[in-house]
């Protein structure tokens, strides 16, 4: 009988990412209801010392696959190792982050194991010990509640920034286990040959706590400077609407909405964004929404917690000055 919850952790620049702790926290809550254990899976090279932190958030065991060939993520090597471990230990549930890496890995892992996979979930519950997952469709215009059939394990990815972190408990001890696996180099066909980091080291939109976003009302690429000043002050990431991206004012990776990124920050400040349905779909789960727009009838005001009717070129710089006084 399949037992236990597995968390597939993720690293960037060697450090465990926040989503890994969110997953362990949620895994702990589910495992307590099932009376089962939480096992975190850690893949990499010389990474054992990272295992302890996973315990503080709720992992009982950490299985470490330590191998130079796992230092950087490749689909082939990671899927091969995790599939072998899962086939040997038969966990009931495997959770991963709905990050770029997690989405790449989970799809292939589920296909290899021949089981169901629920992508980008925002809530989990249990029914007779089976996983029930709630996930957005059409970028959040609706939500589907899904269950699994003939799936052991049941695999799901969790959206970053949604699941609450447990308070770290320093007294928790973990059981550290060396993974037993084999890796056939001829099976690893993809190779990472370069990693290009964006300058500035800003949080990605999908992980940002605060987003300052600009749309058609920005009138041109040069005007994003005022958003960047506000964003720098607040430690925020700058986003954009589809029309701003399609106009070539901002890179496509900044786009928020149905054909861009779906975001859930604490605070989303929409400047000169009218609130097209495909944009609202991508940011409506933000905890607080502020809209700054000179059109009082803009649909964005129907979704905003705080609306400011006015010219963003006056309001945004003034807001930056006012926030400077507070912080």
């Amino acid at each position, binding site marked *: 009988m399949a037992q236990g919850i597995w968390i597939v952790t993720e690293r*960037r620049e060697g450090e465990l990412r926040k989503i890994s702790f969110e997953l362990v926290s949620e895994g702990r809550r589910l495992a307590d209801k099932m009376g089962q254990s939480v096992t975190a899976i850690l893949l990499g090279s010389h990474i054992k010392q990272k295992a302890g932190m996973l315990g503080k958030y709720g992992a009982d065991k950490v299985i470490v696959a330590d191998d130079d060939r796992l230092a950087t993520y490749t*689909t*082939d090597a990671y899927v091969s190792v995790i599939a072998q471990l899962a086939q040997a230990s038969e966990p009931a549930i495997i959770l991963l982050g709905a990050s*770029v*890496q997690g*989405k*790449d890995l989970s*799809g*292939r892992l*589920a*296909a*290899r194991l021949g089981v*169901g*996979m629920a*992508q980008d979930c925002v809530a989990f519950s249990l029914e007779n010990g089976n996983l029930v997952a709630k*996930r*957005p*469709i*059409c*970028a*959040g*215009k*609706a*939500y*589907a*509640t*899904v*269950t*699994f059939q*003939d799936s052991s394990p049941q695999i799901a990815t969790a959206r970053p920034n949604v699941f609450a972190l447990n308070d770290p408990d320093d007294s928790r001890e973990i059981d550290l286990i060396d993974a037993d696996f084999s890796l056939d180099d001829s099976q690893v066909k*993809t*190779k*990472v*040959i370069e*990693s*290009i*980091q964006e300058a500035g080291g*800003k949080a*990605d939109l999908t992980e940002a706590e*605060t987003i300052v976003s600009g749309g058609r009302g920005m009138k041109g690429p040069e005007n994003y400077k005022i958003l960047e000043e506000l964003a720098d002050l607040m430690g925020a990431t700058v986003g954009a609407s589809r029309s701003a991206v399609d106009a070539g004012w901002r*890179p*496509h*990776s900044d786009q928020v909405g149905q*054909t*861009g990124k779906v975001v859930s920050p604490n*605070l989303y400040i929409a400047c000169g964004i009218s609130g097209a*349905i495909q944009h609202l779909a991508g940011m*409506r789960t933000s905890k*607080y*929404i*502020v809209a700054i727009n000179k059109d009082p009838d803009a649909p964005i005001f*129907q979704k905003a*917690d*705080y*609306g*400011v009717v006015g010219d963003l070129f006056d*309001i945004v710089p*003034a*807001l930056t000055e006012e*926030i400077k006084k507070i912080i």
Partner: protein
Amino acid sequence: MNIVVCLKQVPDTETQIRIAPDGKSIVTDNIKWVMNPYDEYAVEEALRLKEKFGGEVTIIAVGPKRVTESIRTALAMGADRGILVDDPSVAGSDSLGTARVLEAVIKDLDYDIILCGKQGVDDDYGLVGSGLAELLGIPQISVVIKIEVSEDGSTVKAHREVEGGTLVIEAPLPVLMTTQKGLNEPRYASLPGIMNAKKKPLDMKTIADLGLDASEVGESGAKIKIMQITPPEERKAGKIVEGETPQEKAANLARSLHEEAKLI
């Protein structure tokens, strides 16, 4: 160089989603159906590779008859032929089921590169590409924004968008890649292209034609079952920040964010 593009037809992104009375599906009447936006990048990239290396571009889709319109759009852009698997038994397939149908079509084709949109903008699973690559036993590179195939056509270097940067991944052909916005600017079909598309082959296939058993696909073979579809929580309009001047409005907003919402 032969390229296969897997295409999905989805509701236009401007569509307001309505939930059907069964509570498990969406109302599909009066929906404007379009080629999945991410698949447009796949079609465009396939055409560019064909222009450089020669070969054929084949469009494959799974779905009802209406999907032929989207396939014709791809043919009008310049693809060579289309295959639609239209069979009532595929209704309700999950991603793995769809991948299985696509695999059954593709495994007998002569292909070097398979391109899929990174996800359908309706179900948002994003699993068909990796599932298909696994079933075919070929490498995958997902969420790509740049593709460079070596002159001899043996390997590909693809730029993959990740949080906070880009990874350059190399893989031997045949390979499956999923396409992301930013890869290219999809062309519009020209009038001669639209006329030509009507003469290009578009084959219809059933599950039986592919040697698949109906129980492996569709709702009966699905590993994921939809129990319920619900609307998002309504966000109520909050308050309009008052003030005589922009400065006053900004000050009131900053105070609200600080004192009420405790965000700064």
